[in-house]
C-alpha cells in the first residue's frame, strides 16, 4: 500500500464523531491457557472462533 493510498480522507473531517465507530471486544482462550482479544468496529462482521465471548470494552472516562 502506498503512502498516498493509506491517507484516510476521514482524518480531514473536523469531528471525532465522523470517524468514530462502536467498538466491540471478544475474548477467546488460546493455546497455553492464554487470552486473545478480537476488537471489531462499527458493523464489521468477522468470522470468530467458537467460544468467543463478548466482553466489555473500557473506554476512556471522557469520551
Amino acid at each position: 500500500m502506498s503512502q498516498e493510498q493509506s491517507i484516510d480522507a476521514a482524518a480531514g473531517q473536523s469531528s471525532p464523531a465522523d470517524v468514530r465507530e462502536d467498538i466491540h471486544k471478544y475474548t477467546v482462550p488460546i493455546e497455553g491457557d492464554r487470552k486473545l482479544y478480537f476488537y471489531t468496529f462499527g458493523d464489521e462482521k468477522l468470522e470468530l472462533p467458537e467460544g468467543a465471548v463478548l466482553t466489555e470494552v473500557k473506554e476512556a472516562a471522557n469520551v
Partner: protein
Amino acid sequence: MSELRWHPLLGEWVITATHRQNRTFFPPADYCPLCATKKGGFPTEIPAPDYDIVVFENKFPSLQTPAPEPAIEGTEFEPVGLAEGACEVVCFSPEHNSSLAEQPVKRILNLIRVWTDRFQDLDSRPNVKSIFIFENKGREIGVTLAHPHGQIYAYPFIPPRIATEVDQARKHFAKTGGNLLLDIAASEIKDGRRIVAETESFVVFIPFFARYPYELFIIAKERGKTALTDFTAAEQLDLAIVLKKVLVAFDNLFGFSLPYILAMHQRPSDGEDYTPLYQFHIEFYPPLRTKDKLKYLAGSEAGAGAYINDTLAEEKALELRKLYEAVEL
C-alpha cells in the same frame, strides 16, 4: 524459567526469561504466527480467517500471571522476585507487509482505543505497577517477526526509566509547583527551533537534550493528562492524526520505512496520584543517524550511560518539520 534478579549496583530489577531463547525467529511469510489462520493453512496465533485489531498474551512472556517459580533461590544480598505481570502482543493490521505508518488514521484511532482498553484492564490488576506500550520496528531494532505489531508490558515494579522521570518530575514539582514535562514543552514552544508540530492537544519536537538524531517527543499539552484514559474523543483523534503524520514523515526521511522504537510513557499504576506532576508522552528513538548509518549504543552509552549525539537537534527538527508539514491528510 523466568524471574526478577536485583541489580544492587544500579538499584533495579533484571528480568530473566530463558524460554525466550526458543521464540520464533523470522519465519517464512507462510508461517507467520501473527497472520490470520487461513482455512486449511498453518494454524497461527490468531484462530480466525481475518481480523481487524487483535491483542493476545505472548507465547514467550518475560512476565506472566501466575508467575513461574524462580530458577534460583534469592538471598538477602541477591534478592530474587517473581516475574509476574503480563506481556501482550498487539496486531494492528492483518496485512503481513505493512506498517503503522501505512494504516489509515481511522485504524490508528481504533488502535488508540484498544490501547486504552488494555491500559484500563492491566491498570486494575493489583500486581501491576507500570504499563508500558511500545513498538519495536525493523530488524535494526531487533524484532524477530516481520508482521507489524506492537507490545504491552505490565511490570510488577516501576521500570527505571519511568521511575527516574517520575523522580525528576516530583523534585521539579516540589521546587516550582510546575509539571516538568509541560515546562519542557513550554520551553520548546518558546524557543521554537526544535518544534516539529503543534496541534490543539499535542506538541511534537526533538528535545533540546536529544540522545538520538531523530529522537522525537509527543507531549499532551493539557495538565492532568497522565495516561491514555485521560483523553477525550477529540484528543484521541488528534493523537491519531499526529501519529500518522509523524510516521509518514519518518518514512519520507530517507525514502524507506524507518526503523524505530515507539515508547509510550504513562503514569505508574501503583495507586498514587500523578496528576499534578507527570504527563502522558510518546518518545520515538529511530536508530539511524543517516540513511545508511546506525547510531550504536556503544562504550559511552552502554558502559557509562552517557549518550553522545552526533547531530544538532535544531537541524534535525527542521528536516522533520518540513516533512511533517508536507504530509497531507
